[in-house]
């Protein structure tokens, strides 16, 4: 009765790794924390921790947005420029004398601009059917241009009470404080866990896994892809907000060097570059790893040429991770 062709039973380890690719990055993160801690022994105290996490927040937002696009089988090379653009908008509109209402309006304008940018990307990819890389690379110049038009030079100053609220740890009781960023990260993880139970998540993974099959089954593939570019732009705008509040000023080139790291963080976190598999928790871990490596280099007092070398090694390592997971899987079979 039974057919016996090649049953593939995986060992528990193999299965755990293949279903949660970010476990490997988690291990890497712990190693990074240990090294970092050895170089900077107050690293986990509230002050330095708050500062470290706060500087990583913009990159975390970018990587999360990027994750959606990559899972659906695309890539968004314009996230850095969208961040620059919305950072410029926020810095110009929220002046030092700005009221709460004015600040709110500025945030809404930035969100509208960000979503407009995402819609343009989505239009290029789903309606004009251009390659995601080509589309978003091209639009990145548009957004970067707009950023410089709005704010030709770095500048602007936000109201102090606004920035200090964001910058300082949240004092929960007299003796206990927690970095605001940590709360934000927790909220983002909850957001992902909730999203994981929606139909949208199924559509997202199906689209990236095999767009033709998904379409045939009745998934509106174009709509899903379009939505991922909107999400990516939305998160880039939130990243800009975090940056603006964190620095208290604007820089039209702020995001220039942030696009590639966002992709690297996504891959480091175990999301498959070809789409169909992934997870924003991994991407958050990816950003933390990249950030800590930066810390280690600056604290370790290494020569400046080390930085690009390490960056290159990280990219190679990130790209090799899926291969390593595959190897673990095969050895376990």
């Amino acid at each position, binding site marked *: *009765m*039974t*057919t*016996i*062709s*090649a*049953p*593939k*039973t*995986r060992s528990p380890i193999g299965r755990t790794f293949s279903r949660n690719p970010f476990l490997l990055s988690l291990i890497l993160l712990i190693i990074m924390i240990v090294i970092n801690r050895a170089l900077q022994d107050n690293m986990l105290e509230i002050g330095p921790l708050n500062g470290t996490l706060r500087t990583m927040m913009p990159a975390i937002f970018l990587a999360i947005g990027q994750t959606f696009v990559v899972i659906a089988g695309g890539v968004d090379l314009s996230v850095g420029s969208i961040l620059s653009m919305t950072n410029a908008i926020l810095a110009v509109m929220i002046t030092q004398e700005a009221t709460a209402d004015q600040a709110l309006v500025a945030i809404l304008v930035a969100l509208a601009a960000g979503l407009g940018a995402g819609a343009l990307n989505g239009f290029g990819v789903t309606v004009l059917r251009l390659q995601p890389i080509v589309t978003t690379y091209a639009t990145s110049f548009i957004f970067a241009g707009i950023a410089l038009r709005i704010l030709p030079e770095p500048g602007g100053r936000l109201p102090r009470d606004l920035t200090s609220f964001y910058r300082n740890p949240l004092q929960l009781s007299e003796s206990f404080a927690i970095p605001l960023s940590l709360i934000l990260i927790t909220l983002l993880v909850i957001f992902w866990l909730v999203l994981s*139970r*929606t*139909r949208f*998540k*199924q*559509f997202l*993974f*199906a689209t990236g*896994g*095999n767009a*033709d*099959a*998904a*379409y*045939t*089954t*009745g*998934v*509106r593939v174009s709509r899903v892809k379009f939505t991922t570019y909107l999400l990516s732009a939305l998160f880039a705008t939130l990243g800009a907000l975090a940056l603006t509040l964190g620095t208290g000023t604007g820089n039209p080139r702020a995001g220039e060097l942030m696009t590639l790291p966002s992709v690297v963080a996504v891959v480091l976190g175990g999301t498959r570059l070809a789409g*169909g*598999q992934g997870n924003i928790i991994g991407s958050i871990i990816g950003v933390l790893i990249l950030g800590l490596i930066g810390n280690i280099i600056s604290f370790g007092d290494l020569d400046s040429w080390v930085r690009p070398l390490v960056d290159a090694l990280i990219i190679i390592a990130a790209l090799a991770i899926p291969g390593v997971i595959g190897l673990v899987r095969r050895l376990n079979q």
Partner: protein
Amino acid sequence: MTSFRLTVEKAVKTYGGVTALADGNLDVQAGTVTALLGANGSGKSTLSKILTGVVSPNSGSITLNGAPMRFASPQAARQAGISAVYQELSLIPDLTVAENIWLAHEPLKNGFVSRTLMRQRTQSLLDLFAGLYNRHLTPDALITDLTPDERQLVEILKALSFDPRLIILDEATASLDGQQVNRLFELVTQWKANGMAIVMVSHRMEEIFRIADKASVLRNGRTVGERVIAETSERELVELMIEGAGALHRERAPLVDPANPVRLEVRGLKTSVLHGVDLTVRDGELLGLGGLQGQGQSDLLMALFGAIRSTGQMIVSGEARHFRHPRQAMAADVALVPGDRGSEGLLLIRSIFENLILPSWGSYGTPIRVARAREKGAVIAEELKMVMSSLDAPVNSLSGGNAQKVVIGKWLLRAPKLLLLNDPTKGIDVGAKAEFYSLLRQLRDRGTAILFYSSDDDELLGLCNRVLVMHDGRVSTELFGDRLTHEQLVSASMGTPS
């Protein structure tokens, strides 16, 4: 049950310059099994996809219960109660069985996808085929981990999960074993009684005569006739499908001359699935491998080809060999024609020519004599009667059966000394099968040793003079001469040698 009647008239579909469907007509109704027949590339799948809204026709009309319809999208067709089992399957490899089956109609609870419900409903669907698949096929299994027949079952259950009023089965039986097919046909009979309409595409005529009520035949994209099954014959249908058919003669090979050198000798071959296989193939012999699907036949061929790890003795061309990699096997003039073209055989977006020549580039010199390679490619395409726009068209523009011919052709071009065939005629039409058989005979007569696994008993009976029946990872019975009959083959397959 409300009545259901769907008619398609004068459907046309072109891809660039290629006409996939020139005049497609179909009439289906509740409680009827309509067979859709035709040679490879005649437009069966295209017509099916027009019904499910996946392909939008250039022109033509669809009428549903008397009212004109237009299926602009798969969702629209689904709304009208139409779902399909696609020939190339519509599964997402990295999602689970449950996620695939319920994709785009996930059971919700408070607006969220309910995994519990999804699992339960998947299990009750799987129970329809209880006992006919492996234990590892569970609602939570990933599609990548399944065997081809299990994927096919999932695809069938997926189509069924939409609770359709019309279900289209596009070669749904091609990768199933005999028992699974029997079960499917039992289900089809039930569906029919419940008033479902069924369209079935198959190249196996005996299946058509077993289950269909009427047949609609396509030739070169045109509907050329409709017949009531009870009032027609296999011959008549084949003649409708293929002009000038009738030359489908089968001639069993003579017993091989025992003086021929032994090309392959295997002793105690073991893998995770095989429990010690012994066999010998001589030059000029066409040795059959039979048995129910999944009894280790594919593993045996893969192990011989060095594609999976094995232990045991292997003597190839008089030398003790043990291939650890297909490259070594290829260097020793061994070729394997795989059965699952999607995952094993083809570079889908590359051209037919590139795919054909890929395994034999080496034999065209450096720098490569492209013109000569093209000539050879054209010859083999001609011999296998491939329907295509040109040798430079990408493989994914071919119909399912024609893609399988590319898989066969690319290995034949290497002129192997030992040819391993893993159920190669799956999804190939009657005409091309006949061509393929005569090609095999030619190869055999030229002295090639051939080990031929087929899930089609007729094929083994018609071509081979000796058949090894496999059961549970062993050769359970050897049939030859007078003992090689259909009855013996079936009872040996069930593991009850008589």
